[in-house]
């Protein structure tokens, strides 16, 4: 038997309405309010405790509330966490999202809640690893919403295969994965059918809705280049021959930094590219074609720039996911900022 705990607010915890919204977090053994119906719907999961917390308490003293609730859970056996359903109640929805996310991250267990699409908690938390089920507008839909949460929890604990978000009934979490419908239509039919609909002006459903792109504002110009320290960073895969950091030739998750202090240029006897996504000949013949240390040294001598930073940073950009690239970029930028680097020349291939 797996163990679960449910989080609810002061209202569903039968403490009181708005006047009790400052109610301090509390944990009770057994079932309170909606926990009873949730328990009835669960198979092989026992709701051992119910946590009650006032919506204002969670809203205005979030850190304290989270800390106290996580304290409650410290000595509890817990396999799965529930919160809500929160319907359209905004503060309650945000509270459910907050605590589900915290429990999911810290205890590494699944956390399930339910909200209406208009609840601000949906947009705040849907792209985390918690499951937010598409819930009704008000408590009139309590039973339906709890059933949806419980059905999914039962699947989770029994290790049953999970369907895409739309079929399970939770808000998609921006995680796109493969599915393998054996009898599904071939891509050739899907693409021609979509074209026929588009030609006729009929509604069609793209299989890849265009995600919103993150636009990074261009940095302000460096005021005095002649005093600036400039670093070289590349996704062109230039590394010492032995590739000491074992950076992958494609789909990279690692980056390296290599000392170039005292070098006038990158020698092909020391450096080469391990990038598998472009013809390596030109880069191996002269690695400065990818990491232009020779040109930057010339600028340094002429006084156009203050100094070339003593290390260059490198990774491989082919097949590398945007997520990994962004992480590596943040890690490298952090080091460069700490080292007082003023500007970066970022080269690809």
């Amino acid at each position: 038997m797996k163990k679960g705990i449910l989080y609810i607010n002061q209202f569903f915890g039968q403490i009181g309405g708005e006047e009790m919204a400052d109610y301090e977090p509390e944990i009770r053994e057994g079932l309170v309010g909606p926990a009873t119906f949730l328990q009835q719907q669960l198979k092989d999961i026992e709701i051992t405790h119910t946590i009650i917390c006032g919506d204002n308490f969670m809203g205005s003293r979030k850190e304290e509330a989270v800390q106290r609730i996580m304290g409650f859970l410290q000595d509890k056996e817990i396999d799965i966490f529930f919160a809500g359903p929160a319907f359209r109640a905004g503060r309650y929805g945000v509270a459910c999202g907050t605590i589900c996310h915290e429990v999911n991250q810290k205890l590494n267990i699944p956390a399930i809640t339910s909200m209406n699409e208009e609840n601000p908690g949906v947009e705040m938390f849907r792209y985390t690893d918690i499951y937010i089920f598409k819930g009704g507008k008000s408590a009139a839909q309590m039973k339906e919403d709890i059933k949806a949460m419980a059905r999914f929890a039962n699947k989770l604990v029994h290790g049953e295969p999970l369907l895409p978000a739309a079929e399970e009934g939770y808000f998609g979490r921006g995680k796109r994965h493969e599915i393998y419908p054996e009898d599904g239509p071939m891509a050739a039919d899907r693409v021609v059918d979509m074209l026929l609909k588009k030609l006729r002006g009929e509604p069609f459903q793209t299989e890849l809705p265009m995600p919103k792109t993150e636009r990074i504002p261009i940095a302000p110009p460096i005021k005095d280049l002649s005093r600036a320290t400039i670093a070289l960073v590349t996704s062109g895969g230039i590394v010492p021959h032995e590739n000491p950091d074992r950076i992958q030739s494609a789909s990279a998750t690692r980056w390296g930094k290599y000392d170039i202090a005292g070098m006038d240029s990158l020698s092909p006897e020391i450096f080469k590219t391990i990038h598998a996504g472009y013809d390596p000949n030109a880069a191996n013949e002269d690695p400065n074609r990818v990491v232009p240390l020779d040109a930057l040294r010339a600028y340094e001598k002429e006084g156009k720039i203050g100094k070339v930073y003593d290390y260059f940073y490198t990774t491989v950009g082919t097949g590398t996911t945007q997520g990994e690239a962004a992480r590596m970029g943040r890690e490298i930028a952090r080091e460069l900022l700490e080292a007082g680097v003023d500007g970066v020349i970022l080269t690809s291939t």
Partner: protein
Amino acid sequence: MRLEIGNFPVREVRFGETTAYSNGILTINKEEALKVVMEDEHITEADLVIACPGDPVRIVPVKEAIEPRVKVSGGTMFPGVTNELVPVGWGRTHALKGVDVLVVGKHWGGFQDGLIDMSGPGAKHTFYSSLKHICLVADTDEEFERYEQQKKNHALRWAGHRLAEYIATCVKDLEPETLEVYELPPITQRSPEVNALPGVVYVMQLDSQMEEDGYNALVYGWDSNHMLPTFMHPNEVLDGAIVSGSFMPCSSKFSTYCHQNNPTIKRLYQEHGKTINFLGVIMSNLNVNLEEKTRSALFVAQIAKSLGAVGAIVAEEGYGNPDVDFIKCIVALEEAGIKTVGITNECTGRDGRSQPLVALDERADALVTTGNVSELIELPPMPIVIGELEALARDGLSGGWEGCVRPDGSIIMENNAMFCGDTICGFSRKRMAEF
């Protein structure tokens, strides 16, 4: 242009005294077949092994798949590659169906090579688990690339093309079980009824991002890196004018078999005269620098517009950097007033949360996607391995890495190395969903 493809379904493949086809049984004289393979002095050793759907078999490193075919009349097989450069897409071609020649490295793999499981949980990851394979397992003396991550695989791929034609020669003079006819008259000579239907083109963006010859897809033997988009008859694609390259990460690749059997072209043929006027194929490519990408997009849109197309399908043989070519081409077509649908795969990362394409544009509002190149796939050991399993971990296959082959023979890999795993040509039933 009229092309007849006579089909000879193969229910069983075996070795025997003579290479012959009878009642669905394909018999191969191994010795004679290997002689055809060994015509290239660079091939140092070779063997043929049969693998069928359901067999407890894992095949790796797979380099190419070819449907065994022979020209009965009109042209040659693989013109400008293994045979004389003459036009194809007309006359009669005989094809052995449900079977392919699969080119497998005896030891060495590379970035562009892939893996196929013929049964078990891995089988669902590629269409190629559903074909009977005549595996050509061989090694060469191409020392210059033995330890290179990117391999041209010239000797092996060409041997596969010769072998496929040799095998199919046994049905050259036989009566096929079924006959498919592909006929599209010249655009200006179609009936008023057909001309009244919306004109549609199929745009193929071939794998062509290597600057050096020998890696890219070939169009009548011509390196697709060195071409501008051009207009082709769909029959030419179906009849061996396009030979697969040896560069793109494997799940994104179109094998030569994919070209010979391109299901999107076949479906467009079915719609021709009913819902659309299928104008033909615009053969394009995937380029390295931005100006080349722009130029190709511009040519595609111009050709489509000049042909009077109002609809287009753009298929991208690749992912990552070529997504730029893909989106540019779609945008150029849409801007020319041509309603466009794209087909490609995605790169959403192991956690599914990365941006699916390198380039995005709101005008690409109709896309079909067939897989996630970085989907993590864990598979149990397989009793029989054809080729060399260690190649997946050792030789830089795009979905493999050091340590991804465990001592017990189980593997963990990215879809990237699944042989034609995403079949962007249109076989894929696999798709993407949000979780």
